[in-house]
């Protein structure tokens, strides 16, 4: 299946299960096409492993077009590899040189335990969302368009926050394994729209509490998350979350 001319050495994290001790294992890859995506290269490697009767490498992937947030490889010290604004599935082998050694590790955080090899358990993110990342409305017929006037500027800003795919690259790259960028994006997408207002201050308190309970680290404003986010989620969201949190704790009289 390989039709290219790249020769690479992969160092891939292999770990049998959550309890086992893992280690980096070397794999020599030859005749890799520069037009392959990084995940297709892993498909080739897994096929070779299966043919040899070895265990294939477990890694998360789904849509392979950069919108689902499933793929999660820490490549040469950076989440989703060396390019900016893309996920691992959108990374192509032409971004590497023939003869390169590529180190591939799973996301590393106490709150993201390794399931097997490169797959980590990111349900902590689901629990943060479940703690308040929603609006409670009765379902029914779709409303008329523009029934609620929302300024374009505000709608754009909310939409930019909503672009977060929850891949966890922010946590993976943060030196503190902090989940502030993710949580702030999920808070900001609702905090800027009229539908999000009734539960705005309740939401920020419960989501931040859940984030802390999951064992993520504390934010120290290094900005690494923003730089590595495949969707370009901005630090402005963290500042907005901080403001909402202070309003909730120090101004609001509502008990949560």
């Amino acid at each position, binding site marked *: 299946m390989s039709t290219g001319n790249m020769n690479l050495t992969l160092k891939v994290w292999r770990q049998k299960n959550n309890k086992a001790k893992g280690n980096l294992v070397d794999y020599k890859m030859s005749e890799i096409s520069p037009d392959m995506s990084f995940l297709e290269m892993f498909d080739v490697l897994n096929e070779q492993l299966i043919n040899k009767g070895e265990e294939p490498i477990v890694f998360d992937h789904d849509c392979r077009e950069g919108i689902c947030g499933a793929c999660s490889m820490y490549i040469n*010290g950076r989440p989703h590899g*060396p390019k900016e604004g893309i996920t691992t599935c959108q990374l192509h082998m032409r971004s590497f040189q023939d003869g390169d050694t590529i180190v591939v590790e799973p996301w590393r955080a106490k709150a993201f335990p390794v399931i097997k090899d490169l797959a980590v358990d990111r349900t902590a993110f689901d629990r943060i969302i479940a703690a308040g990342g929603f609006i409670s409305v009765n379902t029914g017929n779709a409303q008329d368009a523009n029934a609620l006037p929302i300024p374009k500027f505000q709608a754009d800003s909310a939409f930019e926050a909503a672009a977060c795919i929850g891949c966890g690259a922010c946590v993976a790259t943060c030196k503190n*394994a902090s989940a502030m960028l993710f949580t702030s994006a999920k808070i900001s997408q609702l905090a800027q729209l009229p539908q999000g207002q009734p539960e705005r201050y309740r939401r920020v308190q419960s989501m931040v509490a859940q984030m*802390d309970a999951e064992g993520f*680290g504390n934010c120290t*404003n290094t*900005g690494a998350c923003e*730089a590595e986010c495949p969707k370009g989620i901005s630090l402005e969201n963290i500042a907005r979350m901080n403001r909402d949190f202070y309003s909730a704790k120090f101004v609001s009289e509502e008990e949560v």
Partner: protein
Amino acid sequence: MASFGNAFSSSIGKKLIMGITGLFLILFLIVHCFINALIFVNDGGLTFNIGAHFMATNWLIRASEVILMAGLLLHIIQGLRLTFQNQAARPEKYAVYDGKANSKWYSRSMGLLGTLLLIFLIVHLSNFWVVSRFTGIPTEDANGHEDLFAVMKETFQNVWLVVLYVLAMGSLLYHLLHGFASAFQTLGWNHKKYSPLIKALGVWYSIIIAVVFAAMPIAMYAGFIN
């Protein structure tokens, strides 16, 4: 009854404490730097000693000093706790971690820079603060004020102390370069109209404070100030 709940024990509350105490220390450094820069008047320390006498005797300054020490301790203790907590949030380290690809080294090293500053502060406070507030300054100047300037001159005849002070101001420079803008972000002051100004102000503030402070031991050791 409504309460503040876990406002200060949450991850955002812990940041807030670092930010507020940090901004308070930033304000203090302006006063400290201005008073000390009076040595550059180069009048044998007479002007500087007037400033030092005022700082040591004015009741409002002395009361602020208690708040300052409490704020400093809070900043140190909270900073160390956060550093250890954050290290624990990633028990297994990466084999390869390319931090420089996405952030500044000093932003990732605030715990280390702060620890260096803590070591410096222990030496610094025992050199001057303990002397001026507790053990007493031995001599008086021509105006009859405690001659803190003489203590300073004597201290900075020791080349190792001069080296320590200058290196510490290097740590302070980078600690402030991250800390200044970071404190505003923590307070939620991220705004398209003001943030570029705050960032630029932070860079200038850090450079001026660190350079002016570092110039003092150097000028005294080299004998530029008499």
